[in-house]
């Protein structure tokens, strides 16, 4: 089928099926029609097609709000990791049910003591015969309340430097030793969860990659995370942004010269970043891979998001901070962009190290055995 036919067929299919509200029912239909795992290997349940078909389908799907959110971690991160790094038994067992929406996945990397520096995590997995026993706590876990399986990074060796003592596992989220607690964030809602592991038994057959080689598997997952974010998987639109110029001009008195100039500043910064993003995507289409320059765009988006929410609430005045005003919610949500997916400071390190090729900071944590390393929060 040529690409135009593919696009037409996809468009017709979406027109007929995009209205399905139940996520699992929709995923099953999507899979049966051949639109789940478009680029994934046929052997494991994918369609074995190219980025071209995937982009064509994504372009058509953009016109709909598809109920894919609970599958976003599986499709964007853990699934591709299993395809790349899992054993054949793991691929045969897990990939098809994931693509068909029969099983939901979450990702278990971050901990209260290990955010930016995730390799310093402290959740332990100790070998016990053919099993591993897991104890510890994870945080910032999306869709865990729906998840059947989790991709877990745990410490298996404390006598070696931190990156060399980690192992990746598939863990059963329905195990009685797994506790999922909604994590209420500063917006008052719970987008994420925290997860507690109490003597959870994981069979060695569910180890992904070699023991103590989990960091290289995690790097694969994080690479897929960046790709899926930049491809817009799970990103919501800006249509109803209450901090946009269009929304604010209806709300504040632009006749005041100070307000007027602040709105101009908002416009300038928004246009500057929008054009940078457009340029990056034009470069990508022209075969110039943006690489770490995407981190500059993410940093600028975080700063713009904070600036807009701050400005909008200031211009709107006290009325913005009572009731369920969308500006109050925007201001509460704004820090998420500067923290999730790498803090602004981490983004600046990435731009400095990989775009400008500046000398790296001297590090003490690459050679010291984990057990002798300062980690987490210590007095």
């Amino acid at each position, binding site marked *: 089928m040529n690409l135009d036919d593919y696009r037409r067929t996809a468009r017709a299919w979406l027109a007929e099926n995009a209205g399905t509200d139940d996520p699992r029912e929709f995923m099953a239909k999507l899979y049966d029609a051949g639109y789940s795992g478009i680029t994934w290997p046929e052997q494991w349940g994918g369609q074995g097609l190219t980025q071209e078909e995937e982009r064509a389908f994504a372009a058509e799907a953009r016109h709909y709000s598809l109920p894919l959110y609970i599958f976003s971690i599986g499709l964007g991160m853990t699934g591709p990791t299993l395809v790349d790094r899992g054993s054949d038994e793991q691929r045969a067992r897990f990939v098809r049910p994931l693509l068909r929406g029969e099983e939901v996945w979450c990702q278990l990397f971050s901990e209260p003591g290990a955010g930016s520096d995730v390799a310093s995590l402290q959740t332990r997995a100790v070998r016990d015969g053919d099993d591993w026993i897991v104890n510890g706590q994870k945080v910032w876990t999306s869709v865990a309340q729906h998840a059947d399986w989790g991709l877990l990074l745990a410490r298996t060796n404390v006598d070696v430097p931190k990156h060399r003592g980690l192992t990746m596992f598939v863990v059963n989220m329905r195990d009685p030793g797994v506790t999922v607690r909604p994590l209420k964030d500063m917006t008052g809602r719970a987008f994420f969860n925290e997860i507690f592991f109490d003597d959870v038994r994981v069979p060695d057959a569910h180890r992904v990659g070699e023991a103590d080689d989990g960091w290289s598997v995690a790097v694969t997952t994080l690479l897929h995370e960046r790709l899926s974010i930049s491809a817009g998987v799970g990103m919501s639109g800006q249509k109803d942004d209450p901090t946009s*110029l269009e929304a604010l*001009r209806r709300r504040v008195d*632009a006749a005041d010269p100070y307000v*007027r*100039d602040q*709105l*101009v*500043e908002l*416009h*300038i910064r928004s*246009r*500057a*970043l929008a*054009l*940078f993003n*457009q*340029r990056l995507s*034009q*470069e990508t289409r*022209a075969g*110039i891979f943006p690489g770490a*320059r995407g981190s*500059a*765009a993410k*940093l*600028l988006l975080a700063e713009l998001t904070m600036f807009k929410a701050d400005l909008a609430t200031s211009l709107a005045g006290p009325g913005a901070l009572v009731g369920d005003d969308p500006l109050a919610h925007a201001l509460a949500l704004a820090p998420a962009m500067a923290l999730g997916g790498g803090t602004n*400071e981490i*983004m*600046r*390190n990435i*731009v*400095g*190290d990989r*775009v*400008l*090729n*500046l*000398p*790296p*900071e*001297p590090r003490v944590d690459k050679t010291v055995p984990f057990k002798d390393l300062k980690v987490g929060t210590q007095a």
Partner: protein
Amino acid sequence: MKLVLSPEQRELRAAVRSFLASAAPLPAVRAAFDSADGYDRDVYARLNGELGLSGLIIPEEYGGAGAGHADLAVALEETGAALLPGPFLATVLATIALTRAPDKDLLTGIAEGRITATYLLDGALTGGPGGQGELLLDGVAEQVINGLDADVILAGTEHGLVAVNATASGVAREALTTFDLTRRQARVTFERASARVIPGPVEGIRDLFAVALAAEQLGVLRAALDAIVAYAKVRVAFGRYIGSYQGVKHKLADMHGKLEQAESIVRYAAWAADESPAELPEAAALAQAYVGRACFEVARDHLLLHGGIGFTWEHDAHLFYKRAKADEVLLGPPRTHRVRLADLLEL
């Protein structure tokens, strides 16, 4: 919308960049602005002859290359990055006006590199009746860029575009001391000076000036950032390269973000100048409002991050700092661009 350079534009950039790197490196720039002329005429002869830059946007029928504003932006970015002294930008602005109101003699002369021109960016001149197609100009232009270098001075008047021979009677030019050492200015007085009226539209040309200047500013910004990034990789303090300190690294990362956004805006504005006249006014105001500020901020921070050496006359940092500020205010106080943007957005 086209925000990525074409292969031809990349070739143009490489050619101008390598020419300026060998013919006008910073030591030569210093020698040039200390000389009587204030610039190196041999460099200009080759720039206009071998590279054909003076004729870049001049239509082929007048001996130019017939290129667009996106191509011009590529060239201006390089002359900006080199802090090239002399009347290059001044002649470009005059040429932009002449592409709207064409004059065969002037365009041909500029394309051949025989004529250097400038454009009056300020000053209210009154024009009394003269001979056929002629005005007699009176008034003072306080600051004319490269006013003493120009053979011809162009101005927009209520009667349209006019051209004045810079050495004609009734034209008095007086050199000014400029903060920016790399671009000289003059005060020009007109007393019943004979000016030729060149028919054609003059409205909208300041938008094209804004785009051209933004391209130069992008070059200044990029060169300043490149200079401090290079220094941060070799300068050691407290036993470490200064670029390894987050206090320095993070500032440089923020400066890089400004560069990325400035380049995106310049490409967009240059594209609008060529392809989308309806978008041009807003794109031009955006270009000056963002790139002008970003250029000065990066030039300032590049100077500061050099430490004490950056405050010395012998170091080049102040040359970028001074050019960046001179450029930021060249088309008027920066707030004028912001007010224009507000007007265009109907705020």
